[in-house]
C-alpha cells in the first residue's frame, strides 16, 4: 500500500517525537528545580531553621515553628497510618485473591485517588466541626489518611516479592501461617517496606491542601495537639500569596527545604531499592 521508504520515515519521525517528549517533560523540571535552588539559597540561612516568623516589614526571621509543626504532623500521621497500613498490606498480600483482599486493594487505590482537599473536608467534618477547633491532631489525621493507601500497597507489593521458598521453609518446619509471615516473610521485606514508608512520609510532608482547614496555621511555636499548628507548606502558601517581597523570599526558602527533603528521600530510596534488587538477584 504505502512504500517502504515512507513507512520507515514515519517510524523515524514518530520515534524521534517520543524522545522529544522526554525532553519536553524534563524542561519544566529543570526550570523549577533551578529556580527553587537559586531563589531558595538566597534566603536560606541558619535563622530560617531557628527563628520565628518576623512581622510584616521586618527583615529576617525564619520558620522554626512551621518546621516543628510539619515534623509533628508527619509524626502523627505516621502513628496512625503505619500500623494500619502495614497490617492491611499483610492481609492483602497473604490472602490475595480472596474477595476481601480485592476489596482492600480497591479501597486503597480509591483512597489514593481521592483529592487531598476532599480528605481535608472529611477530616474537618469528623475532627474539627464537632469540637469547633482546628488542631494539630486533625491535621495529623488528614495526613495519616493520605499515607494509609500508599503504605498498604507498598507493603503488599514488597511482601509478594519475597521468594516463596522462604515461606515454604518456615511452613515445613511447622510454623503457623501468621508466625511465618511475622517472623520470616516480613523481616525479609522489611528494608523495602521501610524505604517505601520513608518515601511516603517525604511526599506527604509536601501536602498543603489537607492541612488548610484541619491543622490551619499558627503564628506561634506550638506543640499542643489540640491547638492549630503551623506547617511548612501552609506557611509557604500564606507567604506566596502575600504582597510582601520579604515574605516571598521566605516562601522560596521554604520551597527549597521541601524540595530538598523530597529529593533526598527519593535518591536514598532509589539507592536502597537498587541494593535490595542486587541482593535478591545475588543469591
Amino acid at each position, binding site marked *: 500500500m504505502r512504500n517502504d521508504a515512507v513507512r520507515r520515515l514515519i*517510524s523515524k519521525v514518530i*520515534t524521534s517525537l517520543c524522545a522529544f517528549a522526554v525532553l519536553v*517533560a524534563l524542561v519544566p523540571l529543570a526550570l523549577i528545580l533551578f529556580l*527553587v535552588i537559586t531563589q531558595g539559597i538566597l534566603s536560606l540561612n541558619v535563622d530560617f531553621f531557628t527563628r520565628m516568623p518576623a512581622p510584616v516589614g521586618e527583615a529576617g526571621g525564619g520558620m522554626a515553628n512551621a518546621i516543628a509543626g510539619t515534623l509533628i504532623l508527619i509524626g502523627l500521621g505516621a502513628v496512625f497510618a503505619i500500623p494500619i497500613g502495614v497490617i492491611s498490606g499483610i492481609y492483602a498480600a497473604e490472602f490475595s485473591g480472596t474477595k476481601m483482599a480485592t476489596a482492600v486493594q480497591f479501597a486503597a487505590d*480509591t483512597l489514593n485517588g*481521592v483529592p487531598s482537599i*476532599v480528605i481535608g*473536608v472529611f477530616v474537618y467534618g469528623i475532627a474539627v466541626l464537632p469540637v469547633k477547633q482546628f488542631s494539630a491532631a486533625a491535621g495529623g489525621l488528614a495526613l495519616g489518611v493520605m499515607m494509609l493507601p500508599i503504605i498498604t500497597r507498598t507493603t503488599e507489593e514488597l511482601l509478594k516479592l519475597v521468594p516463596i521458598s522462604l515461606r515454604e521453609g518456615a511452613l515445613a518446619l511447622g510454623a503457623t501461617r501468621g508466625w511465618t509471615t511475622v517472623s520470616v516473610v516480613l523481616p525479609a521485606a522489611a528494608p523495602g517496606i521501610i524505604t517505601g514508608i520513608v518515601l511516603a512520609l517525604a511526599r506527604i510532608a509536601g501536602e498543603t*491542601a489537607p492541612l488548610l482547614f484541619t491543622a490551619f496555621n499558627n503564628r506561634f511555636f506550638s506543640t499542643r495537639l489540640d491547638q492549630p499548628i503551623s506547617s511548612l507548606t501552609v506557611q509557604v502558601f500564606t507567604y506566596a500569596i502575600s504582597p510582601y517581597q520579604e515574605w516571598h523570599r521566605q516562601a522560596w526558602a521554604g*520551597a527549597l527545604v521541601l524540595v530538598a527533603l523530597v529529593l533526598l528521600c527519593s535518591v536514598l530510596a532509589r539507592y536502597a531499592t537498587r541494593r535490595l534488587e542486587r541482593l535478591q538477584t545475588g543469591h
Partner: protein
Amino acid sequence: MSTSSSSHDLRFRLGTGLVALILVLLVAAIGFELLRQSQLSIAKFGLSFWINDVWDPVSGEFGARPFIWGTLYSSVLALALATPIALGIAIFLSELCPNSLRQPLTFLTELLAAIPSIVYGLWGIFVLVPAVRAFEASLPAALRALPFFSGPPVGVGMLSAVLILAVMVIPFTSSVAREVLKAVPMSQREAAYALGATQWEAIRAALYYGRTGIVGAIMLGFGRALGETMAVTMVIGNNPQISLSLFAPQYTMAAVLANEFTEAADELYLDALIEVGLVLFVITLFVNAGSRVLIWRMNRTATVRTAPPVVAAPIGDAA
C-alpha cells in the same frame, strides 16, 4: 495439633482482616460524612445546585456549575496536552531507550510527581503567570477576536492552570502506561517485526494490545487533574465564571474549597462548600474506579494471553 494450627491461622486472618476493614470503611465513611455534612445545602438547592451559575455567599445563593465547569475544562485541556507527551515518554522509556539511560530518565520523569504541589504553585505565580501574560499580550488582534483568546491578558487564568496541570499529570500517566507496555508480551512485537513492520508499527501493535491499560493510564491522569488543588488555586484567578476563553480567570471545585472554606461564616455557606467537595469526590471516584478496572483487566488479559506459546509448541513439532 492441626486444630490448634488452623485456629492460629484463622485468628491471624481475622486479626489482620479486621484492621484491613478500616481501610474499606474509611472510603465509605468519606462519602457518608460529606453527604451528611452537606444536608442543608442538598435540601435547599437539590439538583439546581449542579446547574445554577450563581455563587453568592452574601445573598445565600449557591450554584456549583462554574466550579464544575472550571474543573472539567481545565482537566480536559490539561489531559489533551499531557497525554501525547506522557505516552511518548512511556514509549521512549520502555521501547526505544538505551539501557544505560533508562533508569536515570525514569527517575527524572517520576521526580515531576515528587515535587510538592505548593512548589508548582509558587513557580506558577512568579514565573509561569508573567510568561503567560507576556504571551497573551503578544497575540495578534485577529486571534484575540476568537472566543478562546478573548478578554484582557492578565496572566492568571485558565491557560496558566492548564499548563501547570499538564506538567503535574504527565508522570502519573506515563508511569502507568510504561507498566502497561512492559506487560505486553514481547511476542506481540516480534510477530509484527516478522511480518515486516517498522519499529513504530511494532510499537503500535503493542499499544493496541495494551489499549485497555493505556486508557486506564489516561483516566488516572484525569483523576489527578480533577483533584489538583494548590497549584491551580494559585494561578487560575479564582473567578466563578463559565467561559471558553483560555485567558479568563476561572475557578475550580478544589480551588473554591481551598480559598473559601475557612471563611464560610454561616452554616448554609459551609454546607454548600462541603457539597462541592461531595461532587468532586463523586466525580473522581467514578474516574478512578473506571481507571483501576481498566488497568486491572489489562493486567489479567496480559497474564492469560502469555500462556499460548506453550500450547503452540506441539503444533510446531507436528508440522
